[in-house]
């Protein structure tokens, strides 16, 4: 009776498979529910501002290689969820707008857990900390924030320290004492610089940073106060508000803490291992390190930054010129609705700050058109787009003036010889308008070349971004600033030289010089 037995065996197998399926299905769905929604596409996208060692910074000359506690945590979370990690460096002020614009699922950037931020985003803490006040080495310790009355204190802009100190000021003023003056700087290293050069009395920062800076600062600063503010106790990751995501991130960080991963990361970056007073005595530091300066000048990072600056400026200006020529012709023509629209375009893009336009295109455009959230829309493209649009609004006025400066009789004479519109413009009007437009256009271009530095706020790794990242890493700001200056001046002088050469071709407009050129 093999047949029924075989049948029974098959039935048995089916039962086992069904049973396994019953167990497996809830397991699978449990795993899926475990991961937050923003990693559903298989990538964990993290935005960070890599200028805050040891949390997030560029640890070397390669500006694309970021490191720090936050980057290690991001990698650990990505491993935990079994997804790919994508990190995007950007300016501090761009972090939360990028999170809101869904350009990243998570911001990990040495951010403090603050109730004000938690109104709009969910925060999950991952590291304990404290706010410290730091002054030049040798400054006697103080006992409370109120002791800073009448002093100037530097903080990083966009951080909450400024607002906290402002509240301290209200108390001081109420008590009839002088307030603390606050100065804000865009990067943490710029803040430290102010203390080093003696412009401010002290700076406010987090203790973890000082652990890391001990070596770099060569004992030039010391902690004069560890504040007892309750709200500066935790670093947190930020995500868009979502109860489920919040639970899953809490669970993930809880697991990483329990299995010792976080402890390993803390140890790696020297956090909590030494006291903040453990600064060595100051050694001799030369005023200007020529080797650092020369190394920066010849480094691939600076060359790449300069190339990006140059490329985005040239492409933007060419685009601006191409779109502004027909605009200028329309504006010089008959009244029409098009003319009203163009006038509005020119007013808007000349009126709004370029920085705002960059931020708008990078952070607000994706809210209206999700296509700009995709990977192809790089910081380079965004900068190109916004600077082209912005520059065309200026260039159109130059073109308009140049075109109207060409005598109307020229067009008539060309018409009377039977030339078509295209021939009239390309052979008669444009060559004459070019002479008038060229000097102001080169001026505009030089301005634009320098304006590209604004694109650091949308994470374009152009020359100034590279410089700031290097300064944050080493604190040798004089040397790196000097290197950047050399690059900018070299580029500007090159274009001034080109202008001179091109102007030589316009001798036809100058009777004496024209005569000198005739054999």
């Amino acid at each position, binding site marked *: 009776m093999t047949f029924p037995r075989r049948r029974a065996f098959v039935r048995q197998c089916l039962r086992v498979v069904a049973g396994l399926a019953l167990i497996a299905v809830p397991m699978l769905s449990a795993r899926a529910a475990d991961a937050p929604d923003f990693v559903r596409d298989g990538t964990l996208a993290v935005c960070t501002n890599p200028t805050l060692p040891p949390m997030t910074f560029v640890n070397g000359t390669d500006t694309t290689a970021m490191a720090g506690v936050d980057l290690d945590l991001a990698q650990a979370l990505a491993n935990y969820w079994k997804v790919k990690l994508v990190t995007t460096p950007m300016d501090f002020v761009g972090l939360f707008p990028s999170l809101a614009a869904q350009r990243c699922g998570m911001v990990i950037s040495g951010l403090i857990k603050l109730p004000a931020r938690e109104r709009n985003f969910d925060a999950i803490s991952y590291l304990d900390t404290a706010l410290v006040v730091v002054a030049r080495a040798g400054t006697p310790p103080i006992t409370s924030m109120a002791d800073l009355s009448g002093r100037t204190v530097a903080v990083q802009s966009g951080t909450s320290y400024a607002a906290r100190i402002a509240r301290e000021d209200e108390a001081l003023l109420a008590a009839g004492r002088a307030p603390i003056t606050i100065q804000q700087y865009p990067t943490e290293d710029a803040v430290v610089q102010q203390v080093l050069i003696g412009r401010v009395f002290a700076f406010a920062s987090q203790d973890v940073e000082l652990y890391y800076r001990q070596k770099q600062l060569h004992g030039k600063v010391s902690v004069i106060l560890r504040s007892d503010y309750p709200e500066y106790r935790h670093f947190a990751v930020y995500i868009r508000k979502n109860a489920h995501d919040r639970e899953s991130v809490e669970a993930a960080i809880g697991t990483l803490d329990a299995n010792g991963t976080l402890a390993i990361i803390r140890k790696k970056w020297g956090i909590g291992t030494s006291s903040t007073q453990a600064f060595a005595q100051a050694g001799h530091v030369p005023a200007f390190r020529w080797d650092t300066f020369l190394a920066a000048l010849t480094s691939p990072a600076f060359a790449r930054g300069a190339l990006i600056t140059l490329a985005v400026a040239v492409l933007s200006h060419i685009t601006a010129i191409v779109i502004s020529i027909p605009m200028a012709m329309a504006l010089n023509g008959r009244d029409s609705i098009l003319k009203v629209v163009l006038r509005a375009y020119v007013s808007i893009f000349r009126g709004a700050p370029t920085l705002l336009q960059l931020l708008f295109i990078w952070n607000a455009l994706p809210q209206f058109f999700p296509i700009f959230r995709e990977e192809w829309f790089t910081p380079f493209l965004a900068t190109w787009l916004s600077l082209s649009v912005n520059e065309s609004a200026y260039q159109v006025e130059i073109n308009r003036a140049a075109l109207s400066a060409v005598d109307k*009789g020229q067009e008539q004479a060309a018409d009377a010889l039977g030339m078509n519109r295209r021939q009239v413009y390309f052979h008669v009007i444009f060559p*004459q308008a070019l002479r008038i437009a060229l000097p102001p256009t080169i001026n505009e271009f030089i301005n634009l070349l320098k304006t590209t530095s604004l694109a650091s706020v949308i994470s374009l790794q152009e020359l100034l971004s590279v410089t700031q990242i290097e300064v944050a890493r080493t604190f040798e700001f004089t040397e790196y600033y000097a290197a950047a200056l050399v690059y900018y001046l070299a580029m500007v002088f090159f274009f001034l030289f080109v202008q001179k050469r091109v102007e030589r071709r316009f001798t036809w407009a100058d009777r004496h010089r024209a005569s000198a050129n005739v054999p």
Partner: protein
Amino acid sequence: MYPDPDTDPSIMISVRNLSKLYKDFIALNRLNFDVKRGEKIVILGPSGSGKSTLIRCFNRIEPHSSGSLTINGQIINDHTSLPRLRGMVGMVFQNYNLFPHLSVLDNCTLAPRLVRRTSRHDAEDMARRFLTQVNILEQANKYPIQLSGGQQQRVAIARALCMRPDVMLFDEPTAALDPEAISGVVSIINDLAAQGITTLCVTHEMGFARHIADRIIFMDQGCILEITPPDTFFTNPRTERARAFLDQMIRC
């Protein structure tokens, strides 16, 4: 009545009921006349009488509003090929309007090369020929800014001739010239007529008009008041308006 331009080959330009309107303003009011091949016509009249507007109708820089215009047997209207018409009808402007960014030679070769697709070599040969005819070949490599008014005038004529026109229009050719240069222009225009080129010329210069004109057209307020040979016009004008105009010109 008028001869039929279609059948009479000696007629170069035929104007019938030609009018030009700018909104409500009548710039040209129902004009009628014929111009013979090789004829030299001078158009006189006070400022605003429509003289310049009239000659600008011939190369359609100002398209006429109604009536008919026939040049060399071709009816000129919206369907006329402008490059062809303007190749047939050349024009010299009051301010010459030379292209300042091009040398004298390139001023002359630009349009033949672009519009006629003439090779650079052939265009330059032709340009040299016409520059020689107007006696300015030695300036061929200079820029317009280096030339005197009279020299620029002659370059402008050579530039127009390079398109091999049948008709030449002159808008105030003597306005900016000294007397010596004016006599130069007179001989050039007589030269053109000898080659069979029809000339229409707007001027304020009475002596110049008397020297070159086969016939004078006198205009006022968009209308033609007289078409007569210069001797008759200057010694015995038929209309009171022409007489007053001449009196005024002589008094100046």
